[in-house]
């Protein structure tokens, strides 16, 4: 038996009343969760380079050991009070939102090699009929060179998936998302 999928529709401009006014999560890892602290700012721009003030970003990541707090990886960690693994924030008037987390560890890929540290991203918003999945990698991590997913991305576009350190902030990182236009971020068919 195969049932037809329910189709996606845009979240529209009023997503906040259902999703983020009372249930946004900027703290993916609480203070005290093992790992190197990261203060991650994500920015969203449209095809004209103009900030998108009504988008929503969702993140999903492994802990510092490279374990997902999920029944199919580390079921015993699912209710870890220090680590949600999940973040969700609306962008502000400048098209920006922030997350407090730790740098994820390396998780295995199906062929047994290890992926480079990365965070899974969903971008949603008015004008987006379905979510746009992408990934955040970290500049300067030597594992990026052999990451099996990054290697699937045309070389001249890989940089769009790599967050840059922001030396003005303690543990600061910055990730720019360009929905379209000349600097369009790589989005995945997940």
């Amino acid at each position, binding site marked *: *038996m195969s049932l037809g999928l*329910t*189709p996606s529709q845009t979240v529209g401009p009023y997503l906040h009343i259902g999703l983020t006014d009372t249930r946004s999560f900027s703290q993916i890892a609480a203070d005290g969760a093992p790992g190197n602290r990261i203060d991650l700012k994500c920015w969203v721009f449209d095809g004209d380079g103009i900030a998108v003030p009504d988008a929503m970003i969702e993140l999903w990541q492994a802990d510092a050991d490279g374990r997902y707090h999920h029944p199919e990886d580390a079921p015993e960690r699912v209710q870890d009070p220090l680590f949600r693994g999940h973040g969700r924030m609306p962008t502000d008037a400048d098209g920006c939102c922030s997350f407090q987390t730790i740098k994820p560890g390396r998780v295995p890929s199906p062929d047994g090699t290890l992926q480079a540290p990365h965070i899974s991203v969903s971008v949603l918003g008015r004008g987006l009929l379905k979510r746009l999945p992408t990934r955040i990698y970290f500049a300067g991590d030597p594992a990026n060179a052999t990451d099996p997913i990054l290697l699937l991305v045309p070389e001249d576009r890989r940089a769009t998936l790599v967050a840059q350190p922001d030396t003005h902030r303690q543990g600061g990182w910055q990730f720019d998302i360009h929905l379209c236009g000349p600097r369009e971020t790589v989005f995945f068919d997940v």
Partner: protein
Amino acid sequence: MSTTTIPPSNKKTPPKVVPYRRPEPGTQPESNYAGYRATARRAPSKPLVYLPHTLSEVTGPVFGHEKIAETDNDLTRQHSGDPLGERIIVSGRVLDGDGRPVSHSLIEIWQANAAGRYRHAIDDHAAPLDPNFSGSGRTLTDQNGAYRFVTIKPGAYPWRNHENAWRPAHIHFSLFGPAFATRLIGQMYFPGDPLFAYDPVLQSIPDEKSRQRLISNFDLETTKPEWALGYRFDIILRGRDATPLDPPKVSPR
């Protein structure tokens, strides 16, 4: 005499990854749909990069242990008085593509009030707000994937996408399902709405049968006498061919 083999302590066997099936062509909207004007400067124009599923895609946030307050799934009881409009019951099941229930899974909804106005700072539609209606709710599916909301029927409302543009009445819904790959946000419509043909958001889905899957059915069985009409709406998330916890019961000869 026997020797015991101790596995190296830091090397766990990576969990087996069973990918989720991809949607059939035409069953999901195109990102770039000219009729919906806002897509023009927001939809990606380059091809998506095919991402074979890894542990990152077959895992996702887990909400099944969260507490749902009594009024979270009854949007008519979140204030001291009754909201205006037509009280309705929206219920159904969340299943995967193979008909297996998606249990203990979070559903979030939001909607306009009976007059077609959202309680949101940027909604300037000249229709009244209702002090007794906030328009958002959440619930968890039960063991069988079943869920139920009580709310009021939302009104249609104008938007500025094109000349004399109106959105058909709808309730936004958001589900995570079991994995990053199963995330779904959609809109549920009501049967027989004359605005369907003019609505680019619904019409962005190429396949007619798939569009129908966003339209709820009137249901006499869940209609409560002297109280509220019932609408049924089943939500189908992506399936996978088999799960690691669910091996075939009969082995091939």
